[in-house]
């Protein structure tokens, strides 16, 4: 086990593949998680994120590829031989042991000295000192979650894995625990790898997010990079919402690419154009689209579209969400902040839309435009 300096304790996955009898869960993924970072694996259920996590924990063996922590290859190491601990989705607390013994379990197996002092400190960190002698079923969901965290954290692993640890909690408690987890991670400075299907949770907590889909990593980056500059339709739809409009690439023009969108020429920055062929999907986030009455001056020197008709208005308090049918028949989503300075538009009204070119992005037309949209 490598316990060398911080720099050599980052986690590397190279070309890791996991095949099950009937399907391939993880397809040759490469990952590098620097030591001390909060990393999220985000994706819908069945995308391979939990399988990836279980391979890092040693609970599954990769079909091919290798997993390293620093310079130590742990691909085939037993779960108890690697400096990795897991917070299970179901917590998996030992029901026959009290909270104290649950937390002390890992230390005792490793014959660690000063078990008592360490357990007491850890219980203090997760604010469960008074519950030490209770059995797990006597605690509430949130308390059990903290025991599961303490039980893993106390071993000071090089990598801490969290498998949807907040999934069983109600919304309010989940929000509180997200901040709590982030605080603890900063405090202890360990590498956290968090598996979740909740994009908001991933964006709130993680430094880096890897979006997984069908066993592959679609895109990896900081939360705002992923949101602002998605490279695939899946990422554009799975992280927040996007308007994706079919267009034909006309050609480069300085730092921009000109695209014909149903007769209107729009510009997209080269750094945000990810279409390889002559066709593409022009993407724009609903809150980046500005809406105005016909002929009204719009505060955006950008791509301008007219002839939209408001087909739906939902007032949600902080914002108003419009559906606007464009001349080519597509309905676009527009979110406007309720600053109080502008009037609401009514259903049936004709409006102009506009957006700043630097907010738009261009995706490859070969991709499924509905990928990553969750069906409710």
């Amino acid at each position, binding site marked *: 086990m490598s316990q060398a300096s911080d720099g050599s304790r980052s986690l590397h996955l190279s070309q890791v593949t996991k095949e099950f009898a009937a399907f391939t869960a993880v397809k040759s993924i490469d990952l590098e998680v620097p030591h001390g970072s909060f990393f999220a694996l985000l994706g819908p259920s069945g995308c391979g994120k939990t399988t990836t996590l279980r391979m890092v924990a040693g609970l599954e063996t990769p079909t091919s590829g290798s997993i390293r922590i620093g310079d130590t290859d742990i691909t085939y190491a037993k*779960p*108890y031989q690697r400096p990795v601990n897991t917070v299970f989705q179901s917590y*998996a607390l030992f029901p026959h042991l009290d909270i104290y013994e649950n937390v002390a379990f*890992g230390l005792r*197996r490793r014959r660690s000295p000063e078990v008592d002092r360490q357990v007491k400190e850890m219980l203090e960190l997760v604010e469960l000192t008074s519950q030490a002698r209770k*059995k797990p*079923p006597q605690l509430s969901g949130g308390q059990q979650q903290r025991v599961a965290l303490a*039980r893993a954290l106390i*071993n000071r692993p090089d990598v801490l894995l969290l498998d949807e640890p907040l999934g069983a909690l109600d919304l309010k408690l989940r929000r509180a625990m997200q901040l709590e987890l982030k605080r603890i991670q900063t405090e202890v400075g360990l590498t956290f790898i968090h598996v979740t299907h909740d994009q908001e949770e991933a964006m709130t907590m993680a430094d880096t997010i890897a979006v997984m889909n069908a066993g592959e990593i679609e895109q990896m980056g900081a939360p705002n990079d992923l949101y602002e500059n998605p490279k695939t339709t899946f990422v554009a739809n799975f992280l927040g919402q996007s308007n994706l409009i079919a267009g034909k690439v006309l050609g480069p023009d300085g730092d921009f690419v000109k695209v014909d969108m149903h007769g209107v020429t729009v510009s997209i920055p080269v750094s945000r154009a990810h279409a390889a062929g002559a066709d593409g999907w022009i993407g724009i986030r609903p809150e980046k689209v500005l809406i105005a009455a016909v002929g009204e001056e719009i505060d955006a020197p950008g791509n301008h579209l007219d002839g939209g008709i408001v087909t739906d208005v939902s007032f949600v308090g902080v914002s108003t969400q419009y559906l606007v049918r464009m001349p080519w028949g597509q309905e676009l989503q527009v979110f406007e902040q309720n600053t109080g300075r502008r009037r609401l538009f009514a259903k049936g009204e004709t409006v102009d839309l506009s957006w700043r070119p630097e907010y738009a992005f261009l995706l490859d037309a070969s991709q499924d435009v509905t990928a990553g949209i969750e069906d409710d």
Partner: protein
Amino acid sequence: MSPIARTWRWIREHVVLALGLLVLTYMFVPIAVVVLMSFNDPGKSKNVYTFRHFTLHNWMHPCAPAGMCHSVGLSLGIGLLATIIATIIGTMAAFGMVRHEFAGRSLANTVIFLPMASPEIVMGSSLLALFVSTQVALGFVTILIAHVMFCLSFVVVTVKARLTGLDDNLEQAAMDLYANETETFWRVTFPLVLPGILGAALLSFSLSFDDYIITNLNAGQSTTFPMFVWGAAQRGVPMQVNVIGTVMFLIAITLVLGNELNNRRQARALATR
């Protein structure tokens, strides 16, 4: 309110209680008779089923009837041995059947039920045929083999149920927390399956202690307690049989009450979290 309405209401409020008490009475009258008769002094009368005088004689001299205490000792010995053997083999079989994929697993699952499903008289006579044809001398060993056989399927079924209900994340969590395979088994798996194993052992013991049909066919010259009682019943059961019955009942009720008290203690702890 009219007296009739009042009576009707009283009946309505107490009918469930009354029926419940009736059912309890129905269940406990036979036991009460056993306890009562253990204090009976039948004197010179041939009719041992009538209570004549109160006496402590039966309790002071439980081994007075010839051969009875020997038969109790034999039943206890066979019961304990059969329980230990069946519990160990059955528990291992249950682990194998739940934890390992092997060809014929579903067949094995069905076959294990057969001894529970087939009539005792059939099993007893087929065992006898087996022992006679292979020239095994009937006695302690053949009774033991027969008892282990019919206890096995109960143990497998009971332990299997417990094992199937066990969250396998717990073992993964133990391994994740640096426990190797052996430590994981003894510190997590075994303690969690133990209640199932204990239940299976208790069930085995009572099945073994109780068995008459299979035992009678395969006992040879040996006499177990049920066989003794059966034989004695032809001439009039000695009162000491009731003493043994009462003691067995007391042991059983102590176990049940102890378990119940333990459960209540845990439930209270749950309630005051």
